[in-house]
């Protein structure tokens, strides 16, 4: 069966698992095209007005897949870390899509929740497998293959500081799988500028939404650090500085990474926070971040809000000014 996976939202975290799992079950995984003008336009047309940019874009990816697949995969992601949530919109994502887009193929909307414990991922796999009509023996086998690959990919991502960035049509996972375990990240010299790029993976790694932010930074000789390549234990250590535990995983990653770098005396030349307009969690997280950073004024901070009307020119100007600032500081 051809299973459609939208190249949006949690694709940037879970694709290695989903792809391996579906293929182990003997299905073909069809990925939607990288975000483009048409996908954005379709997303704007179908999604509810009040949704944020990444959710609208997700709707566009669904439209892109409708004609090409037998089944659509729209998991209901509730929690990806024990005791934590993600944005409420993910909890209702399959419902939003079903009521907004007509003539959809069958949908697999299995829950993914590790809120109670990490076994949630097996449950997730079982529920997908059962929906596809496989025996539990085969499902378990496929799960083992997929979770092993997924875990080693996550380790590889951190140890090689490999950002989940697609290159052209190829997904980040496919283009990396040949490197897997032998590729070593270029060891950058002392003079490289280090920038901590904060934001939800589906915003910062989507080249269309982020207007190639990562590539633009890298072209300027900047080493981009994101929460995805920071070891989990460091993020948790950083997040401990909060008075109250933050209950959104992505928000915790943002705040935790910042605190970790600020408090452990790691050299940073700048921090960028990319958020989408109307993002609920980021309105809170961004505020805490800005207040923390503006109190000690040690690192230049750039906050960018994006929405469907963002123009690339203004974006570039702000980015260039920011790069000038951090380069100037380094020279002095």
């Amino acid at each position, binding site marked *: 069966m051809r299973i459609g996976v939208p190249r949006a939202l949690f694709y940037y975290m879970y694709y290695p698992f989903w792809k391996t799992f579906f293929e182990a079950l003997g299905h073909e995984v069809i990925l939607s095209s990288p975000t483009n003008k048409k996908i954005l336009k379709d997303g704007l047309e179908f*999604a*509810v007005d*009040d*949704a944020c940019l990444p959710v609208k874009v997700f709707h566009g990816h669904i439209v892109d897949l409708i004609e090409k697949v037998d089944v659509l995969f729209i998991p*209901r992601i*509730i929690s990806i870390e024990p005791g*934590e*949530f*993600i*944005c*409420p*919109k993910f*909890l*209702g994502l399959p*419902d*939003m899509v079903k*009521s*907004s887009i007509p003539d959809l193929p069958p949908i697999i909307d299995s*829950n993914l929740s590790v809120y109670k414990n990490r076994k949630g991922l097996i449950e997730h796999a079982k529920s997908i497998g059962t929906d596809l009509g496989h025996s539990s023996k085969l499902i378990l086998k496929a799960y083992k293959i997929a979770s092993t690959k997924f875990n080693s990919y996550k380790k590889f991502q951190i140890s090689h500081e490999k950002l989940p960035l697609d290159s052209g049509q190829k997904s980040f996972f496919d283009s990396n799988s040949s490197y897997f375990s032998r590729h070593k990240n270029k060891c950058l010299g002392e003079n490289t500028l280090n920038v901590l790029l904060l934001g939800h993976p589906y915003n910062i790694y989507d080249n269309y939404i982020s207007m190639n932010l990562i590539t633009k930074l890298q072209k300027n000789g900047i080493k981009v650090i994101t929460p995805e390549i920071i070891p989990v234990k460091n993020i948790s250590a950083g997040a401990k500085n*909060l*008075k*109250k535990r*933050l*209950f*959104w995983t992505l928000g915790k990653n943002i705040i935790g990474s910042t605190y970790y770098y600020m408090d452990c005396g790691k050299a940073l030349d700048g921090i960028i926070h990319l958020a989408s*307009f*109307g*993002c*609920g*969690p*980021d*309105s*809170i997280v*961004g*505020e*805490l971040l800005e*207040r923390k950073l503006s*109190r000690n004024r040690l690192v230049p901070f750039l906050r960018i*809000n994006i929405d469907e009307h963002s123009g690339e020119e203004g974006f570039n100007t702000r980015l260039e000014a920011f790069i000038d600032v951090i380069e100037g500081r380094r020279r002095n």
Partner: protein
Amino acid sequence: MKVTFPHMGNLYIPLRTFFENLGAEVVVPPLSSKRTLEIGCKYSPEFACLPLKVTLGNFIEALEMGADTIVMAGGVGPCRFGYYAEVQREILKDLGYDFDMIVLEPPQGHFWDLIKKFKYITNKKSFKEIYLAGKLAWKKIILLDRLEKMVNRIRAVELEKGKTDKAYKKALNLISNARDEQELAFARQQIAKEISSIKKAKERNLLKVGLVGEIYTLLEPFVNFNIEKQLGELGVLVERSIYISQWVRENLLPSFMKSKEPEVLAKLAEPYIPCFVGGHGRESVAQIVSYAKQGFDGVIHLLPLTCMPEIVAKSVLPMVSKIHSIPVMTFVLDEHSAETGLRTRLEAFVDLIRERKEEKEFGVLSGD
């Protein structure tokens, strides 16, 4: 210690009673106003939702009046409300205020934690004293809820315009000033007398509209432009889906004391939103289905701009509205909302449902 808390509709009445009966000095912030909103917005993050901004304004106004201890509710997500207090504390700190902030987290198995915090606020009063103060406050909440329900029914049919609201104001004062249960019982009788003396028109085809949505925008008349009163003035009987007593039951009581009612209700939303989506998103949908089944003529859905759970609800509303054949109108509220715009849309909505109702009845008469 001078205790203060945020406004949400009439919540200040039982809260003041509770803290005063425990011997704390209470500073009730001025009722939310344009000024509250202005200062709240000035210092809040731009994309935060409206309740954060208005309650921040409440806190600043209370601190200006000399309050030094803020009592605020917390939460465990995924709705933003659970992190309000953390952000508001940082903002107020940066503004240079000197205060203590006590956050009452929902007692997920930590009911004693809540009692401990009350003990701290109230200077180590005994459990019994806390219980007694809580009991009176709770009785006030129940009476307030009942009063609001009555007023929303009568306003639509009052013969003398404004009579109901006069009685309502008087009743609020009576409840607010009652110092013990005896006085509250007396107030209850007074109120019943007052309300029953309002002359009512005999209206057979009264329009019925349900109000659903995010709790703060439903309960705080300042941010929803007193929508219940406005609908009443348009001759519409209003029923609101959330009352303070429900919120307290769901959020502050230990789980074994909770009623099963919300779970039963949530079942109604299953075909559209089968699982919890934070806040009252799923409940809003369930309430609409429930109103449709009860034969209401329309539903109004309120939410603050960028409210995550209600956006999920909003996206399935067209389907719910179509399947259950009930008109639903959504109002998204923020600091730029204007009363005139809301009024115009309300009038249009009421016209629409009135026409629809007449058509239906005409259909029945002519045997269609």
